[in-house]
């Protein structure tokens, strides 16, 4: 990794002030994404992966608030601290330097504007482009994301398109201003497998051609394994394991990652008895356990250390970080 990565998140804490108390959805997350790299952020619902993504663009919905930590974006040799950037400058970053793709393209596209208008709007917001130029750019983008009959689709409304087609439009919008980073929050979760395959291939192809870095947020380990260079696994607001994808999937070290991988059913596991499971359930933020947050569900946990002491994120092997007291013993 180069001296200054494209995006460096350091010790980010984002919490929600609710009547039930302060809920730390993201609790000390550090991440780095290099130029043109793909980082997968994996975890189950409520682990804080989406809040992390929203924090980058300061789009966390009230009553959520970034409490501490830094988010540095390095573009054109200049480092920008996104947590303290004035709102006006931040708007230039949103959509301009960092594009965003959401899970549900039906609700994230405005139903009353045509697809062309919506792509053109992004272009006009960030580049002083005229009406015709913006429309031309929108057409170009639709061609880039391989929408069939792009000239006709330009004047279509979101509801006239299929789910896969809408997701292509979302990608076109995110990429319209040639951002350095695209944040994709569960981009294929709402799609069928054959459509998911189309979108994943498209994303990989666009990355090769445009050199855009991607932060891919998903709960699907398979998607990460097939598309990402690096992986970070989140559990209960913290990153528990981080490594290059090949390394993580061949030699997982954190009991949670090991458990997730073992819990996946498939034909090969037929007949080998019941699936290995992680007992219990993901704790909601108001019930985060002390010490290592995974310890109540962990088969390797040893008292009193795991319940008392928050394990640090340690580099066990080159580039392979784990937040577990006993990672060396678990490692095969």
């Amino acid at each position, binding site marked *: 990794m180069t001296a200054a990565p494209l995006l460096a998140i350091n010790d980010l804490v984002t919490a929600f002030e609710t009547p039930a108390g302060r809920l730390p959805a993201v609790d000390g997350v550090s991440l780095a994404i290099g130029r043109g790299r793909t980082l997968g952020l994996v975890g*189950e*619902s409520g682990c804080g992966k989406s809040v992390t993504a929203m924090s980058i663009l300061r789009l966390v919905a009230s009553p959520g608030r970034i409490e501490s930590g830094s988010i540095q974006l390095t573009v054109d040799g200049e480092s920008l601290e996104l947590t303290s950037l004035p709102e006006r400058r931040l708007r230039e970053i949103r959509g301009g330097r960092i594009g965003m793709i959401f899970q549900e393209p039906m609700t994230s596209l405005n139903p009353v504007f045509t697809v062309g208008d919506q792509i053109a709007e992004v272009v006009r917001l960030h580049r002083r482009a005229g009406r015709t130029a913006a429309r031309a750019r929108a057409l170009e983008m639709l*061609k880039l994301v*391989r*929408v*069939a*009959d792009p000239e006709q689709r330009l004047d279509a409304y979101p509801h006239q398109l*299929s*789910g*896969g*087609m809408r997701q292509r439009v979302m990608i076109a919008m995110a990429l319209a201003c040639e951002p350095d980073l695209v944040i994709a929050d569960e981009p294929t979760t709402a799609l*069928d*497998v*054959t*459509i*998911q*395959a*189309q979108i*994943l*291939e498209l994303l990989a*192809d666009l990355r090769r051609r445009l050199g855009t870095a991607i932060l891919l947020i998903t*709960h*699907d*380990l*398979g*998607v*990460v*394994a*097939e*598309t990402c260079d690096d992986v970070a696994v989140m559990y209960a607001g913290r990153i528990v394991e981080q490594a290059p994808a090949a390394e993580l*999937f061949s030699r997982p070290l954190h009991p949670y990652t090991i*458990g*997730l*991988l073992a*819990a*996946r*059913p*498939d*034909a*090969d*596991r*037929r*007949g*080998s*008895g*019941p*699936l*290995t*499971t*992680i*007992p219990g*359930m*993901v704790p909601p933020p108001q019930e985060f356990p002390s010490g290592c947050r995974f310890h109540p569900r962990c088969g390797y946990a040893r008292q009193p250390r795991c319940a008392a002491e928050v394990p640090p994120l340690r580099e066990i092997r080159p580039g392979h970080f784990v937040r577990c007291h006993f990672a060396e013993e678990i490692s095969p």
Partner: protein
Amino acid sequence: MTTAQPNAEGTAAGQRSAQEAVEPALLAVEQLQTHFPIRKGLLRRQVGTVRAVDGVSFSIPRGQTLGLVGESGCGKTTVGRSLLRLIEPTGGSVRFAGRDVRGQSRAELRRLRRRMQIVFQDPYGSLNPRMKVRSILEEGLVIHGMGDRATRLERMAAALERTGLAAAALDRYPHEFSGGQRQRIAIARAVVLEPEFLVLDEPVSALDVSIQAQVINLLAELRQELGLTYLFISHDLSVVEYLADQVAVMYLGRIVESAPAEQLCRQPLHPYTQALFSAVPSVEPSRRRQRIVLPGDVPSPSRPPSGCRFHPRCPLAEAVCREVDPPQVDLAGHRVHCHVAGRELDRSGGDATAASAAVAAAIIAATAGPAAPSPPRSDA
């Protein structure tokens, strides 16, 4: 209990093939059709028909699990609901334990429904938020007059315990439980009526990965202990492969291929099945197949394509596919509807492995095409 196929071990008859020959299937579906009218305007004139399920046949022997896979809109959910007549089928026959479900009167249907239960996908939507778990579980027992107050309570506590919940859950509302626990309640609601057959409509799709495995294990356990027969509906091939004995793949209202689970997974013959398997992302590089990316979207079931319904997206489509609906080719229980696969089977003399490989090679040859990353195709 770690047996290779818990269900086979669980039933009285050990030899599956012998059992099939003697005992008729618990559920036999013939040419099931469920069409929905599309109505428009003030007079609600019918302007078209959605052929959600259009001629589906299968049978499930007692104690076995049929996995029904397909993408959204293929009609798999409608099949499940049509079996229980939660949606009225418009054609074909459904025989459950020798009775024609479609011909039953209202009272007879009610009695049958105790024996055929269903578990839905969304544990948040399938439990009435205004009812306590007690009322949710008790309702079916009351309707079917099963036991007095005390026995009902016993049954409910037993059902909850079976699904891994404490009896204290009875006095709670659904919103007090997590998604996985709610799905357990939904399963308890079905099991408390002591059914023989369960339709499981995407029962784990809405759950987190770590919770999915818990519920899958629970379902396998219940199948063994209670001798249940399942129709397991899912879009997730890996779950179906793990749990089902027989798998049927649906596309646009029809079953395009069905076979014993292992066989289907090892020797898929239909190009759609091949694409479906290859599209599942896997963490293990060894399991990763050459990915087949199908062009376009699933067409609308209100205007299904002529001939083979898969032909507009099929890399191997030929002239005959556009016109002639492919007949079923049956190779010792491995059934497929495809002109190309049928021909390959003929050529290989009934060797499914060779035919599957030949079809796969043909698809890869066709999709790799001239330009490297597939150029814009006729996408719609």
